[in-house]
């Protein structure tokens, strides 16, 4: 009788901690995504695309609002100036002043590279997939320089439109993602997003320099460098419309 009671308590306790850690892991991920994005944000960033024999950089201005809206517009170099990308929920449009056309990115092109970088269109359009398409669990917690760092394993749901076997994120206590590693279904590391510089900007501690690259081609990577960022700015919904993508009014 007593042993049975003990068993019950232990198993109950175990399941409680399990569900608690699950919720925690999911919360940590959600907070990290929201932290990086804010309720709304306006930023200037530089994207450096590096290849073994060339390198190019692009300066861009980006706006985000809520979970769905984002708009990115290229400032430099001159020949790409005005190229824009608008996302609304899972949909994505691009505009190029040279052809003067708004193009909706079809599903067949979602896996392709965004502006020639190591990010895919999907990476850009579906940032919040990580929140609701995965099961998260905490692998380990460690303390580095006085900050707790959670290592979280995210396994996509069975029917999630995600090809990875699992993803492992290292998220600091202050919601900054240190690394985001993508593993294939054999458990091999395929690509990773690493925060190389973390510092304060716009009143928040954020990743100032992030690098995305495939593991087996270390000479090829894309870096996003934050030049300026403002959080919780007042952005009108009209900013995130197709007509604004075509004819900037900002």
């Amino acid at each position: 009788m007593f042993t049975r009671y003990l068993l019950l308590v232990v198993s109950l306790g175990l399941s409680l901690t399990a569900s608690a850690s699950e919720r925690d892991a999911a919360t940590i991920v959600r907070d990290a995504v929201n932290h990086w994005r804010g309720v709304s944000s306006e930023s200037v960033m530089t994207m450096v695309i590096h290849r073994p024999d060339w390198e190019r950089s692009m300066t861009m201005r980006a706006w985000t609002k809520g979970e769905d809206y984002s708009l990115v517009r290229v400032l430099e170099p001159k020949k790409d100036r005005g190229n824009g990308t608008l996302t609304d929920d899972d949909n994505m449009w691009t505009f190029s002043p040279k052809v003067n056309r708004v193009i909706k990115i079809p599903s067949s092109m979602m896996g392709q590279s965004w502006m020639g970088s190591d990010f895919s269109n999907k990476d850009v359009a579906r940032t919040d997939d990580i929140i609701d398409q995965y099961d998260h669990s905490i692998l380990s917690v460690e303390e580095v320089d006085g900050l707790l760092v959670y290592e979280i394993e995210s396994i996509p749901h069975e029917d999630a439109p995600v090809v990875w076997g699992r993803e492992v994120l290292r998220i600091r206590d202050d919601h900054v993602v240190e690394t985001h590693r993508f593993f294939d279904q054999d458990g091999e590391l395929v690509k990773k997003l690493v925060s190389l510089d973390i510092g304060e900007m716009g009143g928040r501690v954020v990743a100032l320099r992030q690098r995305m690259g495939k593991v087996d081609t270390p000479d090829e990577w894309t870096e996003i460098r934050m030049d300026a960022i403002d959080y919780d700015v007042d952005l009108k919904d009209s900013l995130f419309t197709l007509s604004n993508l075509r004819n900037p009014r900002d």
Partner: protein
Amino acid sequence: MHMFVVLARLAWRNLWRNHRRTLIMLAAITLGVWAMIFMTALMRGMVSQMIADGISALPGHVQVHHPDYRDDPSIANLIPRSDTELSARFVDAGFVKWSSRVRVPAVITSEYESRGVTLLGIDPDSERDLTFVDYDAVEGRFLSASDDSGVVIGKKLAATLNTEIGKRVVLMSQDPDNDIADRGFRVIGLFEANVQSFEENYLFAGKATVQKMLRIGDQVSEFVVLGEDYRDVDAEFEKVLQLVDGNVEVKRWFELDPYLGTMLGVMDGFVLVWIVVIFLALSFGLVNTLVMAVFERVREIGLMLALGMKPINILGQIIIESLLLLAIGLALGSALAWATVQPIKDGIDVSIVSEGMDMWGMSSVLYPELLLSDVVLANVVVLVLGFLASLSPAWRASRYEPIEAITKV
């Protein structure tokens, strides 16, 4: 009648008087007839196989589509009726096989690669034996039900994507509002196809699962019906026309795949051309032999004429000679053709040239097909044309002036 018997006996004896000439001629006719029949059987087999493959490559015998589907096989052009409602009518129609499916272009992505493919949302039960995939030969397993959440892809595609059974892939397509519709699927089976491009281009998922993913409710892209014989599908066509109504397009396989349809038509014409061409070559030999036979026997023919034989009988005798020759040759040739087709009836493996064959949409095993009609055609053509060819030497022999002929040196 009595005359005919005498003439036939004379002709028969004449044939074997110079047996070497006769045997050579017989060999030529036999070989020619054999070539006609044998090669035709091979070609027939090739075309049949091609059409069987073509039909198993999804068109079936009769198909129903949205009128614009064939121009733009996309999600926008689904059959504007409910699948269950239409299916209910098909169930009792007594077709050999029928099925409805969702067929849309999609993109499949693994961790490493992505490829454009044709996504087939099917009901595995009704689709059995309708597609080119043999369920039992699938590595892993085939779909078990319409709402199976797995996907079956070709071996070649799996190799390209660097994926395997048990792994997940992502399928992306569009819903009717042009929004992205995507979903993860687990690869449950790998199929092999006769035609390599099928392995790269087609993948199978459950119909209900695909309908849910594409947010199209109870709609499908096409209905497929299989009848008894691909050469005669009009009955099925009429029946389907009565079953469906409204804004749909009903087409037979040779309209859906005009290349295949034309192929069949061309083939039927080609067989005749082929037989005639071979015969032309053969007929020169035949005429030459008969002319020689006549020339050698000028004196003899002159003597017969002088003894009072009527020219018409001379004509008859020579014609009977050539017909006898032809008949023996035809019998031997036909028998030889049958004897050579028989051992290879179960297929000749031509996989050495399979890549080239693939280009034509053919598989790598060739099944010769001996049609009675082809044998009859070859025999009749040779007999009729041979008869015509022998007319000229026979006519010439019957027109000899007896005195001249006898004294001819």
